[in-house]
């Protein structure tokens, strides 16, 4: 994951996962002389992100790592709270869709501006298998895009994503954070009930509780099956391999217009960056 890296952007929410990731990456990369920059996306969720940001500022300051903050307000002109208060006929997607798409766009945008060659994402074992199961249940064609390193399609316009925590269960990360004395704020996103994820998360947790080892088996299946699918995809002439530049913003996309611009058009708002 770190081979050849010179500058890593670390996606930082301020929660336990990103705090542990930043702390450990700092420990590992210091002797390797790899530069770290924390990137925090502030979606503008009152009573949630504003409570966590001070923790991110505190840890980055203690570790001497620069913190770059980008907001939805700066990026698309509206906070997530403002988008969710719009008339329902104007916002047809769930909060998690707006949040996920704009956050991904914001991270890529910031990573390019900062000139990083890796983008570290704090996805843990639970995130990986929840995403796997959700994509499977939705019959998503990019089922295997959450790989430990990189994405479904390799392209120079993508900054390589790395997921250093992908084998660690979420509960163990929480335990490590508590034992290390990180002042993690355990607050829940107020929009969490809108998404599909809680249902999948509860199902997997109940199954793990009854049949211990299920989570690791799912991850192993994901990695092994994903490898075979990737090899077959690479050898095929699939048109999905072609990466275009978005006609509106120039970002890489499989279609003509990227998902972020499509959402912005639906909301009838203007991209600022």
């Amino acid at each position: 994951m770190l081979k050849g890296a010179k500058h890593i952007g670390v996606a930082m929410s301020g929660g336990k996962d990103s705090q542990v990731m930043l702390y450990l990456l700092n420990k590992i990369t210091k002797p390797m002389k790899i530069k770290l920059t924390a990137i925090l996306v502030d979606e503008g969720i009152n009573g949630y992100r504003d409570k966590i940001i001070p923790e991110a500022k505190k840890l980055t300051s203690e570790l001497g790592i620069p913190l770059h903050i980008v907001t939805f307000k700066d990026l698309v002109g509206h906070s997530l709270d403002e988008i969710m208060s719009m008339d329902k006929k104007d916002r047809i997607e769930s909060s998690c869709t707006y949040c996920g798409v704009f956050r991904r766009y914001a991270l890529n945008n910031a990573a390019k501006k900062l000139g990083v060659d890796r983008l570290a994402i704090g996805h843990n074992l639970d995130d990986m298998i929840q995403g796997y199961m959700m994509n499977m249940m939705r019959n998503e064609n990019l089922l295997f895009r959450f790989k430990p390193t990189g994405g479904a399609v390799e392209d120079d316009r993508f900054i390589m994503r790395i997921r250093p925590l992908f084998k660690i269960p979420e509960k163990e990360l929480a335990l490590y954070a508590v034992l290390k004395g990180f002042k993690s704020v355990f607050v829940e996103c107020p929009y969490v009930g809108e998404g599909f994820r809680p249902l999948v998360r509860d199902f997997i947790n109940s199954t793990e509780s009854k049949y211990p080892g299920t989570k690791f088996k799912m991850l192993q299946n994901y990695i092994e099956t994903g490898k075979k699918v990737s090899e077959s995809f690479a050898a095929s002439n699939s048109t999905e391999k072609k990466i275009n530049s978005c006609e509106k913003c120039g970002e890489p996309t499989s279609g003509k217009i990227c998902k972020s611009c499509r959402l912005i058009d639906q909301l009838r708002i203007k991209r600022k960056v």
Partner: protein
Amino acid sequence: MYGVTYINSFCVYSLVDSFYGDFVKCIINEKPRSIKFKGTVKELLGKLGLNEQIVLVKLNGTIVTELDEVSDKDTVEIQKVILGG
């Protein structure tokens, strides 16, 4: 008597003796509740309707596994650590 306190953000459950056996008085979202209980941490969590995958448990101030036994007069702190977002 019940000993009910908050330690940081941990929710505290105190076990006490009563005429009917061991009882747990718990506070969830500031609402007190008591249940009759004796057994493992996992069984306690099951009785409280909490999955062990989403909580950390301290027994008398020390983080423990789900297999540890809870006896009367122990103080059990339960913190929900897996939240959405």
